[in-house]
């Protein structure tokens, strides 16, 4: 696998993402939205499609969908229509899915995505449309559970989804992944979705085709279904590029088809050909009248939008003097940006805080597989810790050692420093004793330093640090060392 462009073919990818909207009840039914409940413990007559039930649209779902549309600069349509997509499947209780087809909620927006190989710049990925639809239930084919049969759990049936369709503007699997990350960030920014792939509430299908570099006509595309982790997305697209390139290299033609990625073999496998595709017989759902949205309603939602990542990133550079990379990193997640901002309001040195977050906090989070929202570390605690380092009350080394614990368990860093005796040793007497001991032990090094071998100084400083358990205040240490060596000034 490689992120380098294919030598012969240009890769053209468009993505369809299904994100579960963060609502408490389902899209057309008041049944609760749950995760991990016992089968069929979160259903209502509407979810079971009992005779006589009718759908009523969840207003919160509409609001969240509008948020996403506005945040991605889509045009929210004054009228959108729910249609029925008809097909039979045991986890589709009505025999149709309520979706939006000819008249979606929103059209024509874009996302500016920082692509991995664009030398730090961003590229615009256009969005075709955004629409609302309901999720299906779960069919369990696993023989260990269902034996020779299929089991159907309708807890998920009817949960509100947002489908976000991109134009075929992506040129590599890595770009696809970058777009997905940007989209996930946006969904979380506006509180519209948890966008958690592991929990299945952020799912992706991809359309992919190849064409020779320089060719303007698009190649025949295939559709990859159910790419349900970031790792899968890239691996599956790479595999499909290999498959299609193999066909084209051999002078063959790619056939329009729906494929699935098999992670075990690392290959894509044809599920069905386009000519066998179902005829979904879309038509406007007669149980629902059109969704009409006035400018005033749309503007109300816009007014409630939080500051979005790009604007915030610029502001962080301006107000806190952050480097662009740091600002962008912090703004990738709204929670992280909030964390930074809360910390910065307590301790003004934003650049230094950003540095600590990037180097230490994110590292500790990654080690423990946590998101910032789950960390026990309070923004104020980080601010206090960084401030203490700056004042010389604790060495950076001691402070860094505390970060993983603070992330995991929380606590007051100042008290921890005190309790554990981590205060920086700047007391001249104690430092002099330590320096003298080191100079005695390493007489040879002292000779070399005096002979002008300056790099030995760091060795000696390191030895003093070791002796003080990392607590020596670096500035004080340098000063005492110079004095004991009989150097003047410093």
């Amino acid at each position, binding site marked *: 696998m490689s992120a380098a462009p294919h030598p012969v073919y240009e890769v053209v990818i468009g993505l369809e993402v299904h994100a579960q909207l963060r609502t408490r009840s389902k899209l057309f039914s008041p049944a609760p939205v749950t995760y991990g409940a016992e089968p069929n413990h979160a259903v209502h007559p509407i979810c079971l499609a009992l005779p006589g039930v*009718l759908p009523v649209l969840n207003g919160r779902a509409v609001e969240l969908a509008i948020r996403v549309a506005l945040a991605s600069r889509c045009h929210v349509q004054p009228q959108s229509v729910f249609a029925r997509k008809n097909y039979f499947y045991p986890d589709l209780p009505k025999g149709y899915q309520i979706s939006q087809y000819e008249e979606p909620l929103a059209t024509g927006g874009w996302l500016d995505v920082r692509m991995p190989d664009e030398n730090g710049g961003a590229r615009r990925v256009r969005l075709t449309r955004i629409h609302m639809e309901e999720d299906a239930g779960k069919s369990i084919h696993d023989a260990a559970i269902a034996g020779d049969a299929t089991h159907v759990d309708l807890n998920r049936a009817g949960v509100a989804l947002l489908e976000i369709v991109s134009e075929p503007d992506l040129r590599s699997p890595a770009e696809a992944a970058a777009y997905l990350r940007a989209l996930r960030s946006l969904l979380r920014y506006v509180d519209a979705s948890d966008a958690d792939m592991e929990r299945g509430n952020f799912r992706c299908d991809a359309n992919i085709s190849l064409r020779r570099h320089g060719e303007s006509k698009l190649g025949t595309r295939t559709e990859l279904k159910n790419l349900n982790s970031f790792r899968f997305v890239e691996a599956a697209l790479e595999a499909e590029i290999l498959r299609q390139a193999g066909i084209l290299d051999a002078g063959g033609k790619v056939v329009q088809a729906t494929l699935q990625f098999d992670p075990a073999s690392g290959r894509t496998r044809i599920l069905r050909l386009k000519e066998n595709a179902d005829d979904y017989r879309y038509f406007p759902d007669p149980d629902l009248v059109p969704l009409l949205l006035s400018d005033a309603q749309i503007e109300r939602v816009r007014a409630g939008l939080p500051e979005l990542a790009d604007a915030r990133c610029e502001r962080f550079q301006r107000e806190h003097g952050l480097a662009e990379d740091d600002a962008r990193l912090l703004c990738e997640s709204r929670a992280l940006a909030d964390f930074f901002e809360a910390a910065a309001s307590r301790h003004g040195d934003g650049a230094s805080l950003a540095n600590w977050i990037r180097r230490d906090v994110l590292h500790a989070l990654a080690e423990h597989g946590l998101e910032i929202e789950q960390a026990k570390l309070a923004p104020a605690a980080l601010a206090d810790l960084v401030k203490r380092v700056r004042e010389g009350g604790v060495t950076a080394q001691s402070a860094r050692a505390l970060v993983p614990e603070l992330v995991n368990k929380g606590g007051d860093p100042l008290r921890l420093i005190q309790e554990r005796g981590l205060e920086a040793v700047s007391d001249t007497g104690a430092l002099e004793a330590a320096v003298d001991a080191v100079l005695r032990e390493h007489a040879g090094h002292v000779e070399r330093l005096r002979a002008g071998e300056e790099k030995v100084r760091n060795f000696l400083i390191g030895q003093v640090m070791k002796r003080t358990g990392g607590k020596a205040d670096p500035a004080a240490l340098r000063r005492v060392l110079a004095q004991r060596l009989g150097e003047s000034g410093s």
Partner: protein
Amino acid sequence: MAAAPLGTLRECREALDEGRTSSAALVEQSLARAEAHAELRLFVRLRAERARAEAQAADARRASGERRSPLDGIPLAVKDNLVRAGEETTCASRILAGFVSPYTSGVMERLEAAGAISIGTTNMDEFAMGSSTEHSVYGPSRNPWDPARTPGGSSGGSAAAVAAGIVPLAIGSDTGGSIRQPACFCGVVGVKPTYGRVSRWGLVAFASSLDQVGGFGRSAEDAAHLLDAISGHDPRDSTSIPEPAPRCADALDGDVAGLVVGLPREYYGDGIEPGVQGAVREACAQLERAGAKLREVSLPYAEYAVATYYLIATAEASSNLARYDGVRYGHRAQGAHTLSEMYRRTRSEGFGAEVKRRILLGTYVLSAGYYDAYYRKAQQVRTLIRRDFEQAFRGCDVIATPTMPETAFRLGERTEDPLRMYLSDIYTVSANLAGIPGVSLPCGFSQGMPVGLQLLGPPLEEARLLRVADAYQRTTAHHRARPPETQ
């Protein structure tokens, strides 16, 4: 000896209020009469024990001076397509055999709140698809005026139960005439309200944009009380009209002076049985004598209504009936080894021929390549038909037409010719396409069988229609006629 026929709602109400009878006695009489007329096959299920218990409760209420509504303690019958918690609803289909609903329809909730007592569910065409109540898994219903004839359909059981004096009131549903046509054939009053006036929550869907629950009574006044009981907003139905429904029963002042009655020239052409034509003309003349003005109006797209209706109704039905798949409830074919086989066998065994026919037509008109030519075209013509009525109602207050071009036909006469059966809906389907209210009331006889006058009004004007019908009934006696063997 067969129990005597029940009186009208007004008569039952007065007898109750004056202490001459009790709800328990009315319910017993109703049940006995239903049993005595079992050969008409009007009921698919009697809820005798429940009805008796409810009657006792109603009598206790009355004893303590409480009256929930004019319907309190009154027996009635309900078409077998409205669900009620803990009770079976089958839509006269094998595919719903044994289905017990865990929830109650909006209409049944309102009837319960009004104190009305359902003695049982009535026979119908399977999933309300038909005009004769012959397409029922329970066998055909018969017309009390002539058991060799159909009571009409699809709400044939309900209409005939009122005509036969088993109940004073009954609930039906009307998708293309399924209340007005059997009301006409059975000589009773049938009301199809404005689309959105009555909740569809818990009404088993046939064609969602056309279905509307309504009712039957022997007089316009009775029908008005029934409509008042079931009308009103239901937030569980997205197509329910939010405005409060005015009380129809309060609007019956007998006054039609100055009212303009429109007679659409397209409805009085060829193809109407002379006896029907004569009775309807005479009814219009009677309205004129009562002070109304008659005026010819035009509904130019009327001739396309049946084609438009069958395209839209079957398309919606094909989708609405996809849920009957043998997975969560209802019939499932035995011994299928794959899901695909289970689906096909379940649905083929579970649905009758007429339902399959309509599912196939509806699937066809929605399928790739045909949608624009059929479904979309029909939706456009539907717009023209709506505009026809908007235009016509600028020149008149109500429209009067024959309900049916004929009287009740013989059982079995049309089952082999579905298209001919569909064509007889010519005067009723437009109201559903336009979403407007319609009433059918008895206006005489042709060769011994009842003739119906249909009144159509602008949206939400069912009170106006019932006022006209009531005014007509104040000066005529057709609605008091009883089928011969039930007198």
